[in-house]
C-alpha cells in the first residue's frame, strides 16, 4: 500500500502535477480499479502476433 501511495503521489509530483486530497482519493480509486487489469493486459501473451500496419478501422483487416 505504501509503495502504491509512493507511486501515485510521487509520480504526479515528478510530473509537476498538483492534486488536492479529493483528487488524490480519485487517483487512488482509479488505480485500484485499473491496475490489476493493466497488469493482466501486460501479461497477456500475444507473442507471434504481427501488428496490423496503419489499420483502417472502417474495414476488415
Amino acid at each position, binding site marked *: 500500500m505504501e509503495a502504491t501511495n509512493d507511486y501515485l503521489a510521487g509520480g504526479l509530483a515528478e510530473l509537476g502535477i498538483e492534486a488536492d486530497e479529493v483528487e488524490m482519493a*480519485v*487517483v487512488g480509486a482509479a488505480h485500484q480499479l485499473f491496475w490489476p487489469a493493466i497488469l493482466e*493486459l*501486460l501479461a497477456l501473451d500475444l507473442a507471434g502476433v504481427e501488428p496490423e500496419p496503419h489499420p483502417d*478501422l*472502417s*474495414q476488415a483487416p
Partner: protein
Amino acid sequence: MSELDRPLREQAGAVAAGELDPAALLDEALARIEARNPAVNAVVATFPERSREMLAAAPEGPLHGVPVVIKDEWPLPWRAQRFGAAEMMRPVEPAASAPYRALRDAGAVIVGVGNMHEAGAGSTGNISVYEPARNPWNVDRCPGGSSSGPAAAVAAGLVAGAVGADGIGSIRFPAAYCGLTGLKPTFGRSALEGHHMAEITTMIVSGPLCADAADARLLGSVLCGEELAAGPPGRLRIGVIDGEVTEDVAPEVAAACETAIEQLRSESGGEVLKVEIADLPASALAAVLIANAESLDGISPERLNRLDPELSPIFRGFAKYRMLMPAAAALKAARVRDVMRRRVADVFDEVDLLAWPTVPAVAPPLEAPLVELPSGVLTADQANVRGAGLANLTGIPAISVPVGRDAEGLPIALQLQAAWGRDELLLDAAEALERANGREWVECRP
C-alpha cells in the same frame, strides 16, 4: 395524438406531403420542451430564432421541417459545444460541424442541444455541468451516457430523433437504458468533422437515437450521407458466446435477450451458433486505454494544474491519473486491437451477427450508479464497458434494440454487432426483431 408523437419518418412524410405545417411542428416541439424538459433535463439549450431560421432555409431533404436534438459534443454555427463540462481541454468555437451540415442539408431543424455525461467519460449520465439528465422511465434512474440528453429527449417525446456520439458505447448505453434504438455506425462512416477530437480519435462516431429501427435508418442515412438501404436480412446466422458479457448478467436481462435472439432466429429462418472470441475481456480495457491515450493529446502537467474547479472531482482526479498509466499498456492495447480485429473478422466468416446484452443490468439509480450482477456489485461503468468496447476497438458497427422490461418497468436491451460496413444488416435485423415481437418494445412509451 400529437404530431410530435409520430415517428420521425411519418413527420417527414407528412411535411413532404403538405399535410403537416413544419412551423407548427417546431412550435409544438418548443412548447413540449418547455413543458416536459424540467423533469428530465434532456435539453440544455434551445434557440427558437435559430431554429426558425433553419426552417426558413431548409431544403427539400429527407428530414425537411422535422425537429431534432443534437448532443452537446459538436459546435453549431451559433454555439460552441461544452461537452457536458465546466471547461474543455482544448479551445472550441461555434462552427458548422459535419453533423450540423448533414442535418441542415437534409432539411432538419435543430431544436435543441442534448445534455451529456461530463466530457463523455461515463456510461450513466449522472454527472454533467448542466446537472444530470434523467431517465423518462423513472426520473431517479440514470438515462445512460454519455449521450444522456439525446436519449432522454427522444424517450420523453420531446423529439423523434436525436444525434449522439459513441466512443465506448455512448449511443448504445443510453439507448438501452431509455428503451430506444441506437446505432453506432462503422468507424468513419458517419459525420464527425467539427468534433474537437475528430483528427485524433480512432474510436468515436456519430449516430442516431430513435424509437425504432426505421427511424434510426432514416437519421443514420442522413448522418452517413448515403442511404442505409433496407432489405431482407436473409437467414441470419446469429453468433452467441460464453463469457461474462452473456453470463455475468442480471437474470431478467439474460432471459429477455435469450428470448429476443430466439425470436430473431425464428423470424429470419436462421440459426444460432456458438462462437468464440479469445481474450474478449481484454478488448474492453484496450478500448479504455486507447480512448484515454487519445484524450491526452495536448495535455500537459501545467494544463492539469489549472483545471476549472467546477469540473467534477472524478474528472479532475482521473485526468491526472491518466498521466500515470504506463505507455507499455497503451502499446499492448494497440496490439490487442490488431488481434481482435483479426479474430472478429474470422468470426464474421462464420456468422452474420454477434448478439449479447447491451448492458448487463437495467438503469441504476442516479444517486448510486451500481449494478448487482451474479459476480457481485459493480459500478455501472465497470459492467457496461465489457460488452461495448469491442465495437469501438475494432471499428465494427453495433446497434442496441429494446427487447423487454424488468419487473419495475425499466427497459432491457440487446446489442447486435456485424462486420465492417454492414450497418444496413443491423437495421434489417432490428426491423426483423420488431416484426417478430409485434413491435411490443419499440411502441412502449414511459
